[in-house]
């Protein structure tokens, strides 16, 4: 049984809440960054919420994920606490990594989140290993490996998928194709023109889905997760979506047009579309949506407050901390 089913009214409410949580969380992070209250760098997933939620909704508690540098959405959808995440970003002792990891390394291994990763494609082989361990332990937990379109050209992509395929490991590889790897257009850098099609090379199913439609992401993932759980092996999903913000804060957006950004935002926004279809189908009412929006706004505001109130990291026990 999946965690929630966005194609049902009850599930839709939960999924919508999570998607708004991601959006508001990212906006909060952006604001904190702009105000100089966050340091380092940051990679926002605004516009990509339907991928994170569509995939995570299809998992069961205990299932594992590996994530990327652009991992806030995956992490939240997988069940992370926004305040604990913000505590990490604000370098608090109470953060997921005690302020040592930051945005690119948020993890909760005990909770099945094996971690965001600052290395493009760096978590793909780790996902295969987690699935191998699960198999050896006789468990049926599935591992979802998120990666970007740019990551599909790293050698690790190839080695990880080949390994998972020959051993029929329970991994669902989810490519979040947001059209660009930094400034490189996906179709310029990726020979063959499709990440999903690369699945054929490994004899595993590959599907391209509309990554801005949470229900279709969910449905495809659900089936791929079922296969994996039943021992039918890995699969590859390519979810087409778009990143509204720059790659990171240093991005001047010279490689794309404002029109392109506006078109995605105005015509294909995953939240707009999901709300639109819910209203249209009558599954959810305007009031409910407004309520969710309001609650999320508040909960993120609270999370920020909570994170700020948490104790800062201390250098006291740094020495020797490289070792268990």
């Amino acid at each position, binding site marked *: 049984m999946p965690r929630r089913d966005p194609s049902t009214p009850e599930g839709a409410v939960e999924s919508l809440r999570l998607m708004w949580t991601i959006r508001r969380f990212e906006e909060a992070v952006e604001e904190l960054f702009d105000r100089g209250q966050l*340091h380092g760098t940051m990679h926002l997933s605004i516009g990509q919420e339907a991928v994170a939620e569509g995939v995570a909704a299809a998992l069961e508690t205990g299932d594992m994920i590996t994530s990327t540098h652009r991992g806030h959405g995956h992490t939240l959808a997988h069940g992370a606490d926004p305040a604990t995440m913000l505590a990490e970003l604000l370098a608090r002792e109470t953060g997921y990594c005690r302020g*040592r990891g930051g945005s*690119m390394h948020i993890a909760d291994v005990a909770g099945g989140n094996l971690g965001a990763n*600052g290395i493009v494609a760096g978590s793909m082989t780790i996902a295969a290993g987690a699935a191998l361990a699960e198999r050896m332990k006789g468990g049926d937990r599935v591992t979802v490996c998120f990666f970007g379109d740019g990551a599909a050209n790293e050698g690790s992509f190839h080695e990880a998928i080949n390994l998972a395929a020959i051993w029929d490991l329970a991994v669902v590889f989810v490519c979040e194709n947001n059209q660009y790897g*930094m400034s*490189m257009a996906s179709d310029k850098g990726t020979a063959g023109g499709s990440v999903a099609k690369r699945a054929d090379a490994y004899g595993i199913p590959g599907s391209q889905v509309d990554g801005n439609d949470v229900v279709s992401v969910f449905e495809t993932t659900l089936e791929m997760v079922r296969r994996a759980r039943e021992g039918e092996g890995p699969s590859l999903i390519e979810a087409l979506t778009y990143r509204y913000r720059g790659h990171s804060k240093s991005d001047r957006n010279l490689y794309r047009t404002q029109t392109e950004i506006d078109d995605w935002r105005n015509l294909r926004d995953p939240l707009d579309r999901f709300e639109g279809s819910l209203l249209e189908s009558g599954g959810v009412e305007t009031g409910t949506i407004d309520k969710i929006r309001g609650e999320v706004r508040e909960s993120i505001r609270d999370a920020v407050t909570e994170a700020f109130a948490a104790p800062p990291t201390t250098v006291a026990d*740094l020495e020797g901390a490289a070792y268990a």
Partner: protein
Amino acid sequence: MPETTTYAKALNTALAGLLAGDERVFLMGEDVGVYGGAFGVSDGLLDRFGEDRVRDTPISEDAIVGAGVGAALTGMLPIVEIQFSDFVVNAMDPLINQAAKLHFMYGGRANVPLVIRAPGGGGTGAAAQHSQSLEAWFAHIPGLKVVLPATVQDAHDLLIAAVRDPNPVVFLEHKLLYKTEGHFEATDDVENPVAKIGESRVIRHGSDLTIAAYSIMTIRALQAAEQLADDGIDVEVIDLRTVRPLDIGPVRESVMKTGRLVVAHEAPIPVGVGAEVVAGVVESNALDYLLAPVRRVGAMDVPMPYAKDLEQAVIPQTGDIVDAVKEVIKS
């Protein structure tokens, strides 16, 4: 030409000069084109030299460096940018098992005049996978040269020297240096480098203690020297500039004068370049002149943390050099 510029612009000028002056030169890497490189070093070069010679690549470090080796082997002078030096780990085969070894392995009958440029170091809050200083690795490998300019002028001059060198050169730029300003004179003659790879340089004269450093730690060492001068401690500072080949002579000579040595780098201490400098001194007669145990200043022995205060604690700062010097002077 302006009389001062930034480290990043000096590199940009050097690249432009090299691209303009020699058809065999090209620049290749992730986002070096329209993006101008993650740190803006190649800003404007795409417009001037076109997509062929300022070549955006997919995110495929192994292929980028490997293609650089293939191109260098067959007559080009590729400059490959790795976006953060941490990602060179994805290209260690072409760099270590191929580039560094081919000249020797092929009996001296082929060269690999490849330059790998990569930003290293911490201080930007980018955490453990984006902040490393890996020069010790490259300096361990016969066949490579390893350059770490500290000044604006050196960034320019040594990059030209690196491209002119018939061997593979790892050229490590420090992220925090990109925006530093300094005296700058450009050269039009990219065929006859004014700087030489493998020359360390005394950049401050002093009589009480020798600090050997490179890259950003050279700057911090100079700052430490100023502070120490206020306390009446007269420090000599040597900028190593190249860590392979390492020009140890000036360090030995300096120690024979001062009798005391501190080596400073941002990388972790164990099996770092600092160890090499120390060993290079005490396996010579300079040992006899040492009046006190040497000290190495380097990162705390942990991966780079994200939190700013932790990061500052891990990265050796000017104050850490000052402290180390005082300890050595005292002992």
